């Protein structure tokens, strides 16, 4: 069971065919996710982290299209599912929760209605049984007065409560994989902590795997087992949480870690941002996309995209800095064949 992978993303390419040109949102990413594992996907806005998640669950809408690669869920290529298969798949074996709880629930139907719908479109159970399940889920996500809340409309609930309802909807069919697209970003900090606690708790109880998308490294440290750092549609570093935090190899990861404000710093120390601006995805330059912003940028970085290099067990980074042999060969004036 340890070797069998729940999710394998292989060389996924996604592009958006807009009126002004093709935007290569995701340019070849690969990662694996085992059972009972939490993978964090970190990156800034525009790095492609949400887009690749949408491709996995089949929610990518035109003008976006998957232009290459495979996504294997328990061995089946999800990208080749028919519409009916995808419909049965979504919400059932794989679930997704989104960023903005204020707008993610249909305002004209009650919470209970929407929960019952979530379970009834996959399992043929009676209304009473469905209601029982729904109430059970609402209790599990930490909502009080479940009977009352069941009959209320989304606008009568607070942001934190709505996010809990979203989580309940996502879990009601006991999926094997949950994709969480920045679920805490739109919430107050204290509520963020509560929701994170809840998710950790639920994950341990249900043993489902989670793909947790965020731009907040603090959240990653809380809940993730492994991390993939994305930049400009590519994975630049991948590894266990400890590896990434204590032994970062890619300059972008280092920059991210360095830019986190430290509560112990004195007020006189400046924050250290990453210089430069994000890449124009319409005309991505050749070479490493992070090059112009990187303090270690070398000439080869501007010419060629670096390969993904195994740093240690389970830890990989895509950077020219670690190609030692090439360096040696260069010193000797030789070429690698």
């Amino acid at each position, binding site marked *: 069971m340890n070797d069998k992978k729940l999710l394998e993303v292989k060389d996924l390419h996604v592009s958006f065919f807009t009126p002004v040109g093709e935007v290569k949102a995701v340019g070849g990413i690969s990662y694996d996710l085992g059972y009972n594992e939490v993978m964090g996907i970190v990156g800034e806005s525009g790095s492609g982290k949400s887009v690749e998640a949408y491709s996995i669950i089949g929610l990518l809408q035109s003008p976006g299209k998957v232009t290459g690669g495979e996504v294997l869920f328990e061995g089946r290529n999800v990208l080749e599912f028919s519409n009916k298969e995808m*419909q049965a*798949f979504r919400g059932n074996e794989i679930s997704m929760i*989104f960023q903005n709880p204020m707008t993610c629930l*249909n305002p004209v139907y009650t919470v209970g209605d929407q929960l019952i719908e*979530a379970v009834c*479109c996959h399992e043929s159970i009676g209304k009473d049984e469905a209601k029982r399940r729904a109430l059970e889920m609402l209790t599990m996500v930490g909502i009080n007065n479940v009977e009352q809340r069941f009959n209320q409309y989304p606008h009568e609930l607070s942001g934190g409560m709505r996010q809990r309802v979203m989580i309940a909807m996502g879990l009601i069919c006991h999926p094997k994989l949950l994709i969480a697209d920045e679920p805490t970003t739109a919430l107050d900090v204290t509520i963020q902590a509560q929701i994170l606690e809840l998710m950790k708790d639920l994950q341990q109880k249900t043993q489902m795997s989670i793909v947790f998308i965020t731009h907040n490294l603090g959240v990653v440290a809380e809940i993730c087992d492994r991390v993939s750092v994305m930049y400009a549609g590519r994975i630049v570093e991948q590894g266990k949480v400890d590896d990434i935090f204590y032994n970062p190899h890619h300059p972008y990861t280092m920059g991210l870690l360095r830019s986190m404000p430290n509560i112990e710093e004195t007020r006189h120390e400046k924050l250290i941002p990453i210089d430069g601006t994000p890449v124009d995805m319409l005309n991505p330059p050749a070479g490493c996309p992070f090059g112009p912003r990187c303090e270690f940028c070398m000439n080869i970085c501007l010419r060629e995209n670096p390969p993904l290099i195994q740093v240690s067990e389970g830890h990989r980074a895509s950077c020219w800095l670690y190609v030692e042999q090439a360096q040696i060969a260069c010193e000797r004036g030789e070429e690698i064949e």
Partner: protein
Amino acid sequence: MIRFLIRRLTMSVATLLIIACLTFLLMNLVPGGPFLSEKAPSPEVLAAMEAKYGLDKPLGVQMVTWISDFAKGDLGVSFRLQKNRPVADIITDLFPTSAKLGFIALGIAVLLGIPLGCVAAYHRGHWLDSMLQVITTLGIAIPSFVLASILLVIFGVYWNILPTLGLSSWQSYLLPCFALAFYPMSYIARLTRSSMLDVIHQEYIRTARAKGVSPTKIIFKHALRNSVIPVITYLGPLTAGIITGSFVIESVFNIPGLGRYYIQSIIGRDYPIIMATTVFYAALLISMNLLVDIIYKFIDPRIDITGEVE
């Protein structure tokens, strides 16, 4: 809820009063009068006719007289178009005809317009959508008298399959109702389409797709209820206007209805008819708007029109 209704009712009566006064003022301020364009009567005859109908009294007095009469249910008599016939009789005679046509046309407009709009939104970019766009844009661009005349010529004359004048048989309803319905149907279809397109891109639709809900259910259960609100807003004034009759349709197809009569009375300066019909129309409009507001409450639980705290 009761308090809300009472408040609305009082406001309505006040509005009706204001509209009545405004109309009265406008009618009298604009040059011209009911008897001027007939074969020019001699000044004595003119004075006598004006005295008979109370037109020689100062405006303020006339207005107050009219309002008090109206409150008693006396709408006066027609000056010109049907000499001395009580206005109330005229309206009760003509209104049912216009209303019948209007309701049928309304039904056509809604029952065809909304599904067409949904289809267009769902198949956005498809040739089906483009075709529907062309038809509906034509529908709002062609003047109604052009459409009515062309339909008349094609179906009534060249193909000779439908009657052209009056309302004798059920077939004779087809042409006028369809001509009357074409503009609202096109407008409703366009409105539904753009509203649907807005709604389809909302995040709760994405959530529904992520849950695995079937596409039909997404359109008819999740999207439709949210997108129908602007359409209902439009239906309020539309209903009031369409059941009071369209001058064009009634003229082209020679149907004795309130719409045609109203326009003729304005041109002919038949004051009592103008006043009564304007107030009648305004009353209809206000009640339709009230109905629409009540319907809102059933569709969208967020809307709280009563202003009462939950």
